[in-house]
C-alpha cells in the first residue's frame, strides 16, 4: 500500500485506526465515574498528543537515524509558531498558508543552523545546537521584541490587517483559525449512555497531518537515503573511506527534522493562535529528547508513544492529589492508608516530574531501546512460552 511493504502498511493502518478512534479509546471511563479523571479524550490534550508526536517523529529522523543528538530542536518549533501567527495576522485565518510558511521558515532556519553545527560531531554538536537555540530564545525575549512581542508572546489583535480575511468578525471579536471555513475550535459531542465523546475538527486536522508525516517518516526510514543515514550513525569514518561525503546527508536529515518541528509549531499556533519565547527554551528541547528516548529512538512508532506517554503524565498524572489518593486507598485501614498516601504523594500531582525523571533513568539504564524494546521483550517472552508449551506438554511425568 502506497509503496510500503506489508509490515509497514499494517503499522500505518494500526496508527491510523488508533488516531481516528482516539476520542473513543482515550475516554474509556464514564463521565460520572471516579476514574473519569484518567480520560484523556478532550480535544486540547489529544491535539497535544499528535502535535508532539510530529515533533518527536521529526527529531527521531535526526537522532534515531544519524545519532546526532541535538539539544536545540525547540528553536525550530518556536520559529514555526511565530511564523504561523504572523501569517494569521497578515494574510488570513486559514491555516494552510500559515503552516506552509512555518514549515518553510523552520526549514531555512534549520539549514543555516545545521550548516554551521554539523561541522562538529558528538557533544560539540549538541553544545552548538544548544547554543544556537539559547541564542534564539534570548533574542526572541529581548531584541526581537517587534517581531516576537517579547515576554507577552505574539497574539492576534483586532487591528491586524489580514489581507485575505476580515480583521474582525461581525460581532467585533477576533476571527477563529479555520481550514477553508471549517473552524478549528468546532466540536461535536456524542453521548452514549454514561459516556461522552468529543470530536473536534482541530484534533482531526492534526491527526491527518500526523498520519501524513508518519507515512513520510516510514518512507524516509525505508529509503536508500535512510540507509545512508544509518550508515553515518554506525560508522562515519568508514563511510568517508569509501569516498562518500556524509555532510549533505546529515544536513538533509537536520533540515527535514527541523521542518517537522516547524510543522508541529505551526499546528500548535493553528490550534491556539499565540506564540511565546518559552517554546524555544532548552528545557523544551530536552523534552523532545525525553520523548524520543522514552519511546525508543530509531524506531518508527517509538517517538509517538513517548510523546503520548509524557503528555499523558503531564496532564493526567499531575492532577492526582491527596484527596484522590485517599479515595483510592479508602479500603485500607486508616493508619496504612495514610502511610500509603504519604509514600505515593511525592510522585504524583506536582511531583510528576520526579516520576518522569525516575522512569527516564530506568529506561535509559535497562531498556536503551525505550518502550518499544520493552514491548518486544514482553512479546518475545510470550512467544518463547508458546514455543516451550508443546515441549513441556510432551514431557509426561514418569508415573
Amino acid at each position, binding site marked *: 500500500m502506497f509503496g510500503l511493504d506489508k509490515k509497514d502498511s499494517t503499522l500505518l493502518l494500526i496508527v491510523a485506526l488508533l488516531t481516528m478512534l482516539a476520542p473513543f479509546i482515550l475516554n474509556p471511563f464514564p463521565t460520572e465515574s471516579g476514574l473519569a479523571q484518567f480520560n484523556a479524550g478532550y480535544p486540547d490534550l489529544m491535539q497535544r498528543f499528535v502535535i508532539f508526536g510530529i515533533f518527536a517523529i521529526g527529531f527521531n529522523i535526526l537522532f534515531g537515524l544519524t*545519532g546526532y*543528538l541535538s539539544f536545540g530542536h525547540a528553536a525550530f518549533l518556536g520559529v514555526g509558531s511565530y511564523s504561523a501567527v504572523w501569517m494569521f495576522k497578515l494574510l488570513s485565518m486559514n491555516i494552510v498558508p500559515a503552516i506552509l510558511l512555518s514549515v518553510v521558515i523552520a526549514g531555512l532556519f534549520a539549514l543555516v543552523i545545521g550548516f*554551521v553545527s554539523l*561541522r*562538529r560531531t*558528538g*557533544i*560539540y554538536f*549538541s*553544545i*552548538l545546537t*544548544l*547554543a*544556537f537555540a*539559547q*541564542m534564539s530564545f*534570548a*533574542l526572541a*525575549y*529581548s*531584541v*526581537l521584541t517587534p517581531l516576537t512581542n517579547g515576554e507577552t508572546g505574539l497574539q492576534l489583535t483586532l487591528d491586524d490587517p489580514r489581507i485575505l480575511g476580515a480583521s474582525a468578525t461581525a460581532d467585533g471579536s477576533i476571527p477563529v483559525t479555520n481550514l477553508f471555513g471549517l473552524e478549528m475550535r468546532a466540536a461535536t459531542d456524542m453521548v452514549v449512555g454514561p459516556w461522552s465523546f468529543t470530536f473536534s475538527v482541530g484534533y482531526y486536522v492534526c491527526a491527518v497531518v500526523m498520519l501524513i508525516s508518519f507515512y513520510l517518516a516510514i518512507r524516509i526510514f525505508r529509503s536508500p537515503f535512510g540507509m545512508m543515514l544509518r550508515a553515518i550513525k554506525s560508522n562515519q569514518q568508514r563511510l568517508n573511506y569509501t569516498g562518500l561525503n556524509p555532510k549533505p546527508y546529515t544536513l538533509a536529515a537536520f533540515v527535514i527534522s527541523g521542518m517537522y518541528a516547524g510543522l508541529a509549531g505551526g499546528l500548535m499556533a493553528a490550534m491556539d493562535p499565540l506564540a511565546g519565547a518559552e517554546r524555544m527554551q*532548552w*528545557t523544551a528541547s*530536552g523534552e523532545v*529528547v525525553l520523548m524520543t*528516548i522514552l519511546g525508543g529512538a530509531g524506531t518508527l512508532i517509538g517517538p509517538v508513544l513517548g510523546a503520548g506517554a509524557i503528555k499523558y503524565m503531564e496532564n493526567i498524572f499531575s492532577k492526582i492529589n491527596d484527596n484522590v489518593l485517599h479515595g483510592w486507598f479508602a479500603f485500607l485501614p486508616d493508619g496504612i492508608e495514610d502511610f500509603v498516601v504519604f509514600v505515593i504523594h*511525592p510522585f504524583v500531582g506536582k*511531583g510528576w*516530574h*520526579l516520576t*518522569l*525523571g*525516575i522512569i*527516564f*533513568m530506568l529506561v*535509559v*539504564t535497562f531498556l*536503551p531501546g525505550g518502550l518499544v524494546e520493552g514491548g518486544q521483550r514482553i512479546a518475545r517472552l510470550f512467544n518463547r512460552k508458546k514455543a516451550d508449551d508443546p515441549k513441556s506438554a510432551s514431557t509426561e511425568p514418569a508415573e
Partner: protein
Amino acid sequence: MDAIILQVLNGLDKGSAYALIALGLTLIFGTLGVVNFAHGALFMIGAFCSVTLQRILNLSFETVDPTKTDFLGNPLKVKTPYVESWFGPEMGSTIIDWSVPLAILFAIPIMILIGFVMERGLIKHFYKRPHADQILVTFGLAIVLQEVIKYFYGANPIQTPAPEALTGVAQLTSTIVYPIWRIVYFCFAVAIIGAVFAFLQFTTFGMVVRAGMADRETVGLLGIDIDKRFTLMFGLAAAVAGLAGVMYGPINAPNYHMGMDFLVLSFVVVVVGGMGSLPGAVAAGFLLGILESFASMKEVITLVPGINQIIIYLVAIVILLTRPRGLMGRKGVME
C-alpha cells in the same frame, strides 16, 4: 577606567562560579570520561546544604517567660535556638550568623558522599556506553535530584544571608565600591582552584590520577587500582561543585532550578576551554564571565542591542568553529 575595572570585578565573581563548576565537570570528564549533566544539580545541592545547616542551627525550643505577656495577655513564649543555650547567647548568635561559611565544613562530607553514591550506584554502569547515553541518564538524574529538593524545600528561593561582618561594600579605591561578599567569593574560588591544582600536582595521589588521565590502561597494568582513585576524584569534583553552591547562596538565594541555569553555561564553558583540560576550564570560566559583564555595559548594549544575552553562546560558536578543540583542548579527547 573605573567602569572597566568595575566590569572586570563583576565578571570575576560570575566567572568564579563558572570556573568552579567547569573545573568539577572537567575533573569528571578527564578522569572517568563521563559527561555529567547532573553537575548543575550538585551545585544546587551544595547551596541547599547551607540552607539545611541554617535550619539545623535555628532549631529552637520554646520557654515561657512569665515576666512578659504577648498582645493577648498570655505569658510570652520565647524561642531560643539550642546553640544559644549550649554555647551561650553571644557565641550562639555568632554561630548562626556565620552559618554559610560553617556550611563549607558541613557540605564537604555530604557532597563527597553524594559523589560516591552517584558514581558507584549509577555512573559506574555507563562507562562502556556511548556518550549520548551518559548525557541522557545524568540528565534524568538531574531532574530527579531537582524534584527531590523541590519536594523538601519548596519552589521558592530561600535566603541564606552572609555573615554580618562580610555584608556591605568595600571601598576599593576612592571611586570604586564593591560588595565584600563577592570579593570573598572570588578569593574562595581562587583558593579552591589552587588547592585542586596543588593536590593534582604535588601529591603522589594526584600524580597517579594525572597519569591515569593520560593513559588509563598503562596505569592499570602497573598494578594500580585506578578505578578507586577515579571514584575519589568524582567525590572531589562533587565537593568542588557543592562548595561553589554553598558560597553562592548569599549572592543569589538558592532555588531548586539554579543548577540547571548554571549547567548549560558551564557546559559551554567546558567546551570553550577544551574538553578534558583543567586550566582551559578555569581560564574559559573567568574569560566568559568577564566578557559577559563587559557585554552588559550600557555603551556596548546601545552599540549592539541584545549582545549581553547571547555573548557567551556567540563566543562558544566562534571558538568551536575556529578552534575545534577549544582553547586548550588536547588531541584525541572526545573525537
